[in-house]
Structures are given as structure tokens and as C-alpha cells.
């Protein structure tokens, strides 16, 4: 069964969310709510909820990065202080804790931030090629719903979108 894409553009955000709500309830054959992608100029936590659970894993990257930065940082600093070339410094121990803590703290943040951002790129799949059904208007003031479904389900979906006052419906073929 071949699948195709369709992008519907809305100006009214409420209509868009209603459309998604109805799609979800419709139980069309050959269509899964997971294949719906929302494209919007601003973030819509309320509509995203409708789309079902799409977990974000960035925070695990953050956790890993922060722990790595903190522990690795302290190990790195103290072990390089204790290398063969250890030079006693003015009345202080070779591995002084307070200064090392300062640096550990900085490295904790440094790696926390870096790996969070790495996690963001991985999670958001950036950099990526734009989908061929991308429309410049979704970065301006319209909300776009990208649907991937079987060809058989397409007319029904298209009909549903039109009912919800979709401004424009771009299909794969129509381009």
C-alpha cells in the first residue's frame, strides 16, 4: 500500500486543533495519529498534547553531560595536578579542594550545556533537509498539518480538512 503526504494550512489555530482532534477520533483505515506532523510558527503545547505522547529525551543528555562534566572534570583536574611534574604551590596542598571545585563546577555546566545541545540536535533531528511539502507560510502566520497516510485514506482526510476551513491543501501530487 503506497503512502503519500499531504499538508493542510490553517489560519485559525482553533480550527487546526479541532481538525486534529477529529482526525484522532476518526479511526480511519491506513492512517495513524503518529504520522501527523504539526508545523507552526510558534510553539503550541496544547495542540502537541493532542498528538499523543511524543517524548523528549533532551533531559537525559543533560543528565549525562552534567555528571560527565562534574566527575570527569574533577578527575581531570586533580590527576593533572598529581602528575609527575607536581609542583608544590605556596603553602597549599598539591590537590587543593576549593579551587578544584570552582573548575569542576564550570566544567559541569560546560558539558551540561554542550551535551544538552547535542541532545537537542539529535532529538529534533537537526540539521535536516526540509520536507518537500514545507511551505514558507508556516514560518509566518499559518499552521500546517502534515499527514502521512495511505492513498485510500487521503480523500477522507482531505475532506475533513476542508470542513475545518483549511486555507489550502497541498498534496504530493499537486506540487
Amino acid at each position, binding site marked *: 500500500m503506497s503512502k503519500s503526504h499531504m499538508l493542510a494550512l490553517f489560519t485559525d489555530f482553533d480550527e487546526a486543533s479541532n481538525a486534529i482532534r477529529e482526525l484522532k477520533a476518526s479511526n480511519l483505515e491506513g492512517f495513524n495519529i503518529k504520522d501527523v*506532523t*504539526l*508545523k*507552526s*510558527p*510558534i*510553539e*503550541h*503545547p496544547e*495542540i*502537541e498534547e493532542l*498528538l499523543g505522547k*511524543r517524548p*523528549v529525551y*533532551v*533531559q537525559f543528555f*543533560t543528565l549525562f553531560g552534567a555528571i560527565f562534566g562534574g566527575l570527569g572534570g574533577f578527575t*581531570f*583536574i586533580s590527576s*593533572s*595536578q598529581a*602528575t*609527575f*611534574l607536581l*609542583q608544590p*604551590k605556596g603553602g*597549599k596542598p598539591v590537590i*587543593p579542594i576549593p*579551587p*578544584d571545585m*570552582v*573548575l569542576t*563546577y*564550570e*566544567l559541569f*555546566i*560546560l558539558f*551540561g*550545556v*554542550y551535551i*544538552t*545541545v547535542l*541532545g*537537542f*540536535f539529535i*532529538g*529534533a*533531528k*537537526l*540539521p*535536516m533537509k*526540509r*520536507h518537500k511539502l*514545507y511551505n*514558507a507560510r*508556516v*514560518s*509566518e*502566520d499559518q499552521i500546517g498539518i*502534515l499527514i502521512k497516510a495511505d492513498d485510500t485514506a487521503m480523500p477522507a482526510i482531505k475532506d475533513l480538512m476542508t470542513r475545518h476551513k483549511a486555507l489550502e491543501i497541498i498534496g504530493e501530487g499537486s506540487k
Partner: protein
Amino acid sequence: MINTFEERDVAVEKRFIHKEKDIREDIAWAQINKDVLKSLERPRMLFWVIFIASLALFMVGVSCEIYQYQTGMGVANLDNPHVWGLYIGTFIFWIGMSHSGTLLSAILHIMHADWRKPIYRFAEAMTTFSLMTAGLFVMVHLGRVWQFYYVVAYPNERWTWPNFQSPLVWDATAIFTYLTSSMIFLYIGMIPDLAICRDNATGFRKSFYTFLSLGWMGTDRQWANFRVTYLTVACFLIPLAVSVHSIVATDFAVSQQPGWHITSFPPYFVAGALYSGCAAIITLFIVLRYVFRFEEYMTMPILEKTAKLTFAIAMVWTYLNLVEYSSTWYGDDMYAKQALIYRATGDFAPYWWMMNFLGSVVPFTLAFKRIRNNIPAMLVISILLNVGMWLERWMIVSPTFANGIYPWTWDHDQWPSLVQWGIVAGSFGWFNMLFMLFCKIFPSVSMYEVKEMVYHRSLVRKGTEDATQINPELAVEGGIAS
């Protein structure tokens, strides 16, 4: 007396939403795009005047630095006990200026203060560029710049490591962390806007923005990851910003010099940093508003809020300043006491008193609504405050050397040479130049967040108009936000 939901909502509306319209809510989203993108193309003539003037000033600094590089640090007119001068003072000044960018973009982001949305982008850019300038000053200050990489911890054929006990290494690490993190923060926050630029640009610019926007499409998945990332990085940035300036303060507080060896230095420095940064934001706000015709977004209520924030932080700074003086005065350290007396009465007394006047008395003008709403007056006051804060840094560095612990080295004829002044002036040129270039190349008002702001306010308004449909979450958010 509020008894019903309806009454409550009316009260909320009266109190928060209609009090100050910091931005028009019925503005068309396409119009936002158009207005901001215009700033990338046709700024006013003043833009080029500022840009060329900054470039010229920067060139003055560059030639001074080349001269100093070839001749030696002696041309800066430093001498042996008095080894630090304007360079370190101005270094702290620039580090400090970077902090309010984080205040606006990270702290206020977490507190849902959405009036920051039109102005945080340029404040964040200011953070980045002033940190770059500060980094340059570390280089300029070094006697052997060409060996600066000795401070970096990297495996090398000498098997040596930097001295991790030194506050300068903490500084280097902290500034590197802060610079890269705030650049990342700036960039991440700009990706949706870069996508807008990409969709509207043509030719060479199109490929440039296409490259930078990484194929952002605004999908739900991207937004969800974006939201978490932005919040996480913001949470990291706040303690980082505090730690950066605390570490700069420990450069001084860790040492034994009287006048530096003070426990309250870290909070004092952080307050001073936020203070000068907020004042600088006001200056740049006014300049950008005129140059790029941002009257619609950088509105007077936002300026007023920034001014209030500045006033509050000025008072914190004043308090900590007095704490520093009084704890020295009532303390037992005769060296520190004598250093304090020297500051107030010695060779640097005029600048010291001027610093106290500009830093603690001038901000009281911000208490008046008429002054807060007067743009020329605000421009002058914000510049005066920054002059005061720059003097503060100089007063921390120089008088201490001129009057240290060891009387034989007291040094009363210390005055920075033209080379020092030239490099300090050049740094302002460098900063302005970079900043202006940034605002010309990248959208300096965050388009997507202004849209969000407009959207949320219109939701709240709709909610209050139609009390049955109110979404309490949004109402509360909008309430705090305004």
C-alpha cells in the same frame, strides 16, 4: 471584593493586561515578519555613521595594541608595583556588561516575564560580544600574548599543565564556558527566526540562512525539543553567569592586597555587573529603536520596565558598595582601612567620589516616571551610569596598587598612557562594530517570541472577554507576564 470568577478576571485584566500595553496585540503576524526583516535591509543612515565611527575607533585601538605588542608593556605606562591598570579594569567592565543579557534572556524567561521577548535577542548578543571584548582584554594585558595558550589545559609535548589553583585559570575556564554557552543559547534561540529569514531571503543570503537554520520547519517534534533545550540551557546559564562574575571577583578577593581582600566582593561584582549591563541595554535599546525603526516592538513601557529593573539593581549595588566600605571601616585590618582612606582622599579621590555619585545618586532619577519616559534623558542617564560603573572597576584596580601593604612601593604618579586609553577606546569601537553588524545580519527582535507574546495576550483577552471559556493556566501566565 471579588466573589465570582468573572469579577476576578475583570480585576486581573484591569491590573495586568490593560495597565500597560507594552505591545499592540492586534498586530498582524506577517507585519511582524516584515518589520523585523526590514532591519536586515534598510536601516537608517545613523547605522552607517555608528558603524564607520566604531570601525575607526577600533582601528585606533588596533594600532595602539600593535605598538604595545612590538615595544613591550612599558608603553602602557605601568610600573613595577603598579602592574595592572585600565586593561584589567575595563576587562571587568566588559565581563560585567555581559551579565544582563543573561538576566533578560534566561532569568526573565524562567520567570515568564514576557515583556523581555522583544528585547532579549539584542541583550543576548550584547552578552556574547562584550565577552569577546573582555577576552581580548585578557590578551592585551598579557606581557607575552604570543604564549597565551599556556593557560589552556591541553596535552602537550612539555607535559605541563596550567596551575589550576590560579583564579586566572578559573577565569579563563569560566569565560570560555560562558562565552560558548551564551553563543549556543543565542544561536539556539535564533533558529526559528533564521528559518523565517531563510523563507524570505533570496540569493546569497538565502543559502547563508539555509545553512544556519539547519532545516528548521517548526514541526511539533522540533518545538518540543526546542522548548526543553532552551529552558535547560537557560537554567544552566543563570548559575553560570553568577559564577563567572564571582570568579572575576575572586581574582581580587583571593589576593592579599588591601582593598581587594574582601569577602563581599563576589556579590558586589555580580550586582555591579547586572547594573552596568542593564544601563547598557537601555542605551542600546534607544539606539536600536531609532536606527532600525523598532518603535512598534521596543515600546516605551518596555523601556520603563528596564529602567525600573536598573533602578532596583542600582540600589542593590549601592547597598553592597556601602557594605564593602563599612565592613572595611569597622574591620580590624589596618591595611584595608588605610587603602579605603587613600581612595577617598588620595590621588584618585575625584574619580572615587565621581564613581559613588554616578553609581548611587544618579539612578535616583529613574524613580521619576517623566524621566523614565523621556528618551534623550534616558540615553544620557544610561551612559552616565555606565561611566560610573567603569570608574568603579578602575577604582578597584588602580588605587590598591598605588597604596599597598608595603610602604616602599607606594606609587603616586600613576596615570594611564595614551596607549592604554587608545586600547580602551578601541574596545568600545570593536564592541559597537560587532554589535551593529550582528543587528544588520540577524534579526535583533525575536519574531517568533513576539508572535507568541501577541498570541498569548490575545488568548487571555479572549478569555477575559468570554469568562466561561477562560483557560486559567494561560490567564495566570499572562498575568505574571505583563
